[in-house]
C-alpha cells in the first residue's frame, strides 16, 4: 500500500472543503471497497479523509411522507429499519441480498452507491483497463466476461455496476442529495451513474469534492414490489442478473390492467438499468405472460452480449417475466427470494 495522509472530520462542509483543495484526496466511509483498492493499488490517494464521524446517520420521514436516509447509515441498519421493511420492502431485500452480514454492518448508503466495478481486470493492476488507466485498453473484451454488461457498454469498457441497493433505488425513483464546493444539489439516482462511453474512468456524474449526504425516497407506491437476484452461489456473490420491480394492477374493471410499473435491472450494465421500454409495454396492458414476454423483449432488443455472457439475455428475460408473474399473481402468491441456479 502506498503511504497516505489521514484526517478524520466531523463536519460535512469541512470534508468537502478539504477534498476540494486536494485533488489527490478521497473520502473514506465504510471502507469495504476503498481499503481493498488501497491494498490492490487500484487507488493511490495522497490523503484519506475519514467521514465516519459525520452526523449523517438519521432516517427520517419527509413532509411528503417519503423517507430520507442519511448517507452514513449502515446498509444493515437501513435494511432493518421498520419503515424501510414495511414501506420499501424492495430496498430492504436488495440491501440484504448484497455482500455479507459483516460487510453490510460496515458499508454506508453513500458508499454503496459509489462502490466500483468488480471487473477482475479493473482490480488487477497488471492488466490494461480503461477504467483504471484511461487509454490502456480493455482486457475484458475478448476475455472473461461472465459478470460483464449486455446493455449500454462501449468499445472502451464493458464493466457492470455491482450494487444491489442502487438497482432498487433506481426503480424507486430515489434522489441523491449531494453537497459540493458550490452548495447542495439533488440528482435522481437513475442519473447519478454514467454509461462508460469514451470515459469509463468516470462511474458517476459527481465532481471531485462532492459528497453524498442523503438518499431521499418518494412516498411509498401503490402495488407490490420485490427484488430478485440471480447469482453463481446462493449467498454472498454479485448478481449475474437482478430485477427490482414494482407493479400496480387495477382490478376494478372486467379485465385487470397494469396501472403503473417500474423495473430496474442489475448486473447487466455500467449503471443500474432502468427498463423504461419494458415499463412502456406494461403500462395499460393486461397482466399476463404474453405481456410480460413482450415487455422483456422490448427491453432486451438492444442487448449486445459478449462471448462469455450470452446466457444473460435469456436469464434477464426469464427473471423479468418470473418477477412480474409473481407480483401480479394475486394476494396468495408467495414471493420466493431464494436464488436460482445459474448455468450458462
Amino acid at each position, binding site marked *: 500500500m502506498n503511504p497516505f495522509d489521514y484526517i478524520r472530520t466531523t463536519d460535512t462542509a469541512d470534508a468537502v472543503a478539504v477534498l476540494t483543495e486536494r485533488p489527490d484526496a478521497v473520502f*473514506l466511509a465504510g471502507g469495504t471497497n476503498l481499503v481493498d483498492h488501497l491494498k490492490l493499488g487500484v487507488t493511490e490517494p495522497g490523503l484519506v479523509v475519514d467521514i465516519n464521524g459525520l452526523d449523517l446517520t438519521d432516517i427520517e420521514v419527509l413532509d411528503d411522507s417519503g423517507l430520507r436516509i442519511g448517507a452514513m447509515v449502515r446498509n444493515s441498519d437501513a435494511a432493518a429499519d421498520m419503515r424501510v421493511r414495511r414501506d420499501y420492502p424492495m430496498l430492504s431485500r436488495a440491501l440484504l*441480498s448484497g455482500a455479507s452480514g*459483516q*460487510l453490510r454492518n460496515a458499508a454506508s448508503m453513500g458508499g454503496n452507491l459509489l462502490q466500483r466495478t468488480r471487473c477482475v481486470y479493473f482490480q488487477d493492476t497488471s492488466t490494461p483497463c480503461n477504467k483504471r488507466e484511461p487509454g490502456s485498453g480493455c482486457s475484458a473484451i475478448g476475455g472473461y466476461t461472465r459478470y460483464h454488461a449486455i446493455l449500454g457498454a462501449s468499445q472502451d469498457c464493458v464493466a457492470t455496476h455491482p450494487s444491489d441497493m442502487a438497482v432498487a433505488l433506481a426503480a424507486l425513483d430515489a434522489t441523491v442529495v449531494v453537497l459540493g464546493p458550490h452548495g447542495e444539489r439533488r440528482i435522481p439516482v437513475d442519473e447519478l451513474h454514467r454509461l462508460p462511453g469514451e470515459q469509463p474512468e468516470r462511474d458517476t456524474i459527481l465532481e471531485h469534492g462532492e459528497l453524498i449526504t442523503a438518499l431521499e425516497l418518494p412516498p411509498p407506491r401503490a402495488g407490490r414490489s420485490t427484488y430478485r437476484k440471480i447469482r453463481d452461489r446462493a449467498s454472498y456473490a454479485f448478481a449475474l442478473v437482478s430485477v427490482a420491480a414494482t407493479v400496480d394492477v387495477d382490478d376494478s374493471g372486467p379485465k385487470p390492467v397494469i396501472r403503473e410499473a417500474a423495473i430496474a435491472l442489475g448486473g447487466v450494465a455500467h449503471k443500474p438499468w432502468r427498463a423504461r421500454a419494458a415499463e412502456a409495454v406494461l403500462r395499460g396492458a393486461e397482466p399476463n405472460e404474453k405481456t410480460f414476454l413482450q415487455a422483456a423483449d422490448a427491453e432486451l432488443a438492444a442487448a449486445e452480449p459478449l462471448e462469455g455472457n450470452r446466457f444473460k439475455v435469456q436469464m434477464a428475460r426469464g427473471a423479468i417475466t418470473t418477477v412480474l408473474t409473481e407480483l401480479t399473481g394475486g394476494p396468495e402468491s408467495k414471493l420466493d*427470494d431464494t436464488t436460482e441456479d445459474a448455468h450458462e
Partner: protein
Amino acid sequence: MDHPLNLTVDGQEHTLAVDPRTTLLDALRDRLGVMSPKKGCDHGQCGACTVLVDGRRLNSCLALALSHDAAAVTTSDGLATDGELSPLHRAFLEQDAFQCGYCTPGQVCSAAGMLQEAADDAPSVVTEDLEAPVDLTDEEIRERMSGNLCRCGAYVNIVAAVSQAAEESR
C-alpha cells in the same frame, strides 16, 4: 506519519501509534499480539478476521485501525469469561463444528454478532415476512453466516452449533 490510536481489546485498554495504512486486523495481530482473529484472504471475502466492534461484527481486514479509534473490540478469545468458554464456544466443540480451526474465531465472532442481530429481529434476505420476528431456521443461519468461509467444509456442523447456541440463549 504515525497517528495515536486507543483501542479496548477484550476488556484491556491499549494506546499505540500507527501508520494510517494499518488495518484493524494488523493492529490487533502485529502490534498488540492479539492472535485470535485470523488473516485469511485479507480482502473481505473469507470472514476469518471477523471481530465485534462495539458489539457489531466486522471484517477487521477491511477497516483502517484509525477509523476505529476509541472502539471496544471483542475477539473470540474475549467472549470467554475468566477462562470459561461461552455457550457459543461450547456449542462449536459439542457439534464438532471445525476441523483445522483456522476460520473458527471468525466463525464464532460472526455467530455472536449474528445471534444479536436475530435477537433484534433484523431480517435476512431469506426471511419471508420482513416485518415478522426472526425464526432462526437452518436456512436463516446459512444465509446469515455466508460471510464466513470454511475450507475444511464443516458447514453442516457450524449450522448445528449456531442453532444450539441460539436455542440455549432463548
